[in-house]
């Protein structure tokens, strides 16, 4: 699948979409496929401080718990309440279902993340294609 051009990606399969100094975060199609049916998403509260590369929550499938890693540092401004009642939305529309929004502390961090093309290449290598 083509990964949306309007965002950047991490090797832990998160995406981050920037709009000025605010960013929106979610997980990729590759992540949701690997996880299988998602039944639970645990996100931090509004106001929480995220540190780039550190875990900020978990996503659970029927069989397993997976950590979510912050693509960038900042303060959480909004959390998607939909995911508490309908976590399966992440499977159905991983690039449209956002998990949280944050105010970026250091927008320069994004330079180290993967472009859509580089992420797709990374995923194809991981999948052994």
């Amino acid at each position, binding site marked *: 699948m083509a990964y949306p051009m309007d965002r950047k990606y991490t090797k832990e399969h998160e995406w981050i979409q920037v709009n000025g100094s605010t960013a929106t975060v979610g997980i990729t199609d590759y992540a949701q*496929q690997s996880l*299988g*049916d998602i039944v*639970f998403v645990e996100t931090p509260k509004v106001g929480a401080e995220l540190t780039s590369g550190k875990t900020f929550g978990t996503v659970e*499938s*029927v*069989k397993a718990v997976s950590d979510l890693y912050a693509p960038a540092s900042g303060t959480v401004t909004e959390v998607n309440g939909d995911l508490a009642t309908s976590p399966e939305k992440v499977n159905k529309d991983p690039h449209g279902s956002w998990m949280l929004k944050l105010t970026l502390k250091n927008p320069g961090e994004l330079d180290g993340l993967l472009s859509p093309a580089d992420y797709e290449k990374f995923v194809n290598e991981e999948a052994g294609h």
Partner: protein
Amino acid sequence: MGAKMVEFNGWDMPVEYPASIGCGIINEHMAVRTGVGIFDVSHMGDIRLAGPQALAAVQHISMNDAAKLSVGQAQYSALLYSNGTFVDDVIVHRLGEDEYLLVINAGTREKDFSWVRDNTRQFDCAVENLSDDFTQIAIQGPKAVNLLQKLTDADLSAVKFYWVTRGKLCGLADILMGRTGYTAEDGFEIYVPADEATSARIWNEILAAGKDFDVVPCGLGARNTLRLEGKLPLYGHEISDTINVWEAGLDRFCKMEKADFVGRGALEIAKASGLQRTLVGLEMTERGIARDGYKVLDLNDREIGYVTSGSPAPFLKKNIALAYVPPEFAAVGTAVKVEIRGQGAGAVVVPTPFYKRPKKTT
């Protein structure tokens, strides 16, 4: 078929089949509860005991009463160590006058076979490990009978639950088919020759015949959620070599009144001294999923036990678990907590099994 595979006790097994063909754990689970699903369970083991003293041998190693079995009948039981803990759980099938088939778990094949052979030497009975001779396929769900009937000349409607029959299946003669399973649904487990060509052909013929019933291939993931809803034990979790029959709540399959069997003495002593812990069913009352190994706490956050198996339950749409707790916490309605990533989440003791299949009206 594009399944996600995992290594399970030395076997390469499918966890779930792809969403792209309508599978995934939740769909597979629901198919078994409402239609029909098929499982390749060839990893299970098969031990045959045959000879003039086969019954005596089985009675010596199995805690249930095999003398109650008519030819063609099966029963759930367990093999115990002399201290009353579990070697394995097993389904004992009486295939003939003096012929019994024990179907055992995959992870314990070699251990079980050695143990059975060592504990039956004194009986005039041949003990054979047939595990590699058979491919076992489970066809489970309310429509399982309809599916299998298309492929065999045996009259399946005449086979009661926990009985077996033999018949022609997909052109193969004399195939053993048992009305047994590990899903808490109606269904059959069939035993076909294990060569790859035959096994693949049978699997594919079942899939093809099952199209009329929307058959779904199912993996280990759904196998686990299905058996958990039905409170069916899994070796290494609810039963093991450190847990005894009374703690596991399997009293009704243990016939203390029959002649001596391995483990009986220790069980008598254990019964007299009373339970230290007991297996209960839990339902989460707060957000969170209890999983295998998580600690169970009382309302003062004191550790009182642990989860043996926990998962979301796709059919019941709740998060459930089985856990060992002291008897004083075992009453239905008791509030406890499960520790999830350092925090206690509320749960309550509920009756088990969590799910019981509806009685057929036809």
